[in-house]
């Protein structure tokens, strides 16, 4: 309770909580806020004639205007929020689980096992995410082709999609190379953090006492070591949700891979930042709402991370 009173005593944390709740609300209520086109569900909805390339200003059908080819900005942002929350939470929790387990097991085993496992962790630290994305994308393409599938480009911007009906193709459709490479290449900070904590905790008296009482290794690890070593990892999770979503949007924006609707909107609106005639605000709806939303998302999770870190880990700040 001491924690919660300290947490709620700062207005920044109230702001963070409200923002997280509103993003969650939009994500959950997306079907009500902006109903899908029944014929073509998905974050990209066409309102009007899809051959029309000039973005149209806000109207009743598209409250935030349209992109080229008459894709509704509002619809993409709302469903993009759903996508972002799902992606961010999924990747952040998966990396945290892998990293925490890896670091804790290595620290508990100690000795040569610990050294080898942490050497592997260090080796993973030299692997840039962009390289992992490129490699996995190639492996994925290969898997799609060798299993008799084909690739289509959805509106030319939001990454290739596998099309075919066989079970393995359907599975491949739902596997996103970016998600996997982010999970595979981001768990190392958690492992290092938990590892040092577990090694320190192992020497404390209550763990020695648990040993003396005959507790099994699993019990010591999961009941005694992990709960005491996990708090700094929570702070990292909060910050990572934001940064993973931003990374996803970045990769979609530069056209490498990833299916972030936000990144797609920004990439599509990019050429309209400077409208015909060189004025910057003529087509504001193509880039401004998406930009502000992505920035707000980053700020939200950073605020939450900072707030949690001050409460859970007061010595470091």
């Amino acid at each position: 309770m001491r924690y919660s009173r300290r947490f709620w005593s700062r207005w920044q944390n109230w702001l963070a909580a409200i923002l997280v709740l509103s993003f969650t609300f939009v994500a959950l209520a997306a079907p009500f806020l902006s109903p899908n086109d029944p014929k073509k569900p998905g974050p990209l909805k066409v309102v009007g004639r899809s051959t029309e390339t000039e973005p149209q200003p806000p109207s009743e059908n598209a409250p935030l205007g349209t992109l080229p080819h008459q894709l509704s900005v509002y619809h993409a942002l709302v469903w993009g929020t759903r996508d972002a929350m799902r992606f961010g939470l999924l990747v952040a929790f998966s990396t945290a689980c892998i990293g925490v387990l890896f670091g804790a097991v290595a620290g508990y085993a100690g000795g040569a096992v610990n050294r080898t496992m942490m050497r592997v962790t260090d080796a993973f630290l030299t692997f840039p995410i962009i390289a992992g994305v490129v490699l996995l994308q190639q492996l994925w393409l290969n898997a799609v082709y060798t299993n008799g599938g084909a690739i289509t480009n959805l509106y030319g911007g939001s990454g290739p999609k596998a099309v075919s009906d066989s079970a393995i193709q359907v599975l491949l459709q739902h596997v996103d190379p970016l998600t996997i490479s982010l999970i595979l290449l981001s768990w190392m900070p958690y492992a290092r953090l938990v590892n040092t904590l577990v090694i320190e905790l192992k020497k404390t008296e209550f763990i020695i006492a648990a040993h003396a009482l005959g507790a099994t290794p699993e019990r010591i690890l999961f009941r005694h070591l992990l709960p005491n070593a996990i708090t700094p990892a929570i702070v990292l999770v909060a910050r990572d949700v934001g940064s993973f979503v931003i990374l996803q949007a970045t990769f979609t924006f530069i056209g490498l891979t990833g299916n972030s609707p936000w990144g797609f909107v920004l990439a599509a609106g990019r050429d309209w930042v400077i409208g015909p005639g060189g004025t910057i605000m003529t087509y504001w709806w193509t880039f401004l709402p998406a930009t502000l939303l992505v920035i707000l998302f980053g700020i939200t999770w950073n605020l939450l991370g900072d707030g949690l870190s001050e409460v859970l880990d007061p010595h470091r700040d």
Partner: protein
Amino acid sequence: MPPFLQFLLRRFIAIPISLLIITMLLYAGVMLTPPETRAAIYLPAPNAHQTEADIARLTELTIKKYHLRDPYLLQYGYWLKSLLQGTWGYSPTINENVLPALLRRTPATAELTLYSVLFFIPLGLVSGVLAGWRQRRGFDNTFRFMAFVATSFPPFILALTFLSFFYVNLHWFAPGRIAQEFSFQISDPAFRSITGLYTFDTLLNGRFDIFVDALRHLAMPVFTLSIYHWATLGRITRSIIITERHKEYLVAAQARGLTDQRVIWRHAFFNTLAPSFTSVALSAASLVTGVFVVEIIYRIYGVSDVIVRAMQGSPDAPAALGFCLYSIVMVLFVMFVLDILQAIFDPRIREDLFNS
């Protein structure tokens, strides 16, 4: 052997070990593909007279030659051997052998990385130390706010904003590496290309106008890339100096009547370097990812150009694998350089190395 050389050697040997682990993991991933695909990693440039049957026979020969149907370790050994011999394969999408293609594009990437690192490391260290020394005062509050903004602002949006203001509206800076009219002069044989880095070459050739133009093109990418890493480094340095500030040696220095400036910069500063540099080294991989992303957004045709072209459509395993390896080598190199710098600047390590 002098201790410093021993240290250098020890650190240098760590690089192949890391590479060995990571390439084994990489090849384990490649093993998921059928042998015919793996053969593509070794195939040379096709020539126009080859028929389908020729290519099929060549593929089969390659599979035999590199033991592509044999157990993992054996295949891995052959792959490693061909890598060391410089056979990184031929990329069909860029119509070039992968290794020369990567090497030729390196100077642009190296220039961007070099200036960013030179920009954000000193700035991050100094601002972190100053902020942490007087915690919760004016400068600290400004710093924490700016660091917060810098870490939550997506870099690609920052880049977009810069482009629309400083390039389109104000014409101060520009994307790309150099202005069109100068790019012809630089490719002219009369212009001696020594390092490949435009800012160095132009100075060596005495062309200040091109030098200024190269800087004009570097400003936006360097700033975009630095700002996030500046904030993270500054935050870490700040928290280190906060714990360091109450240590006895600093209290003693102050009790002896040394000025604040001298206590900070002569005594406290060098002791924050080791943990700060370690944190930069740990984020070297994200720095390299950032370099490539910034290159793509600002249309600097560096190493990332290879994958931008290779990722457009059909599978191109040699380019992807080559790029992967190359970026890992880049990360290891950055880490190595940081290690050396740390040894030179950190008094605790330096004393050990130079005076024993």
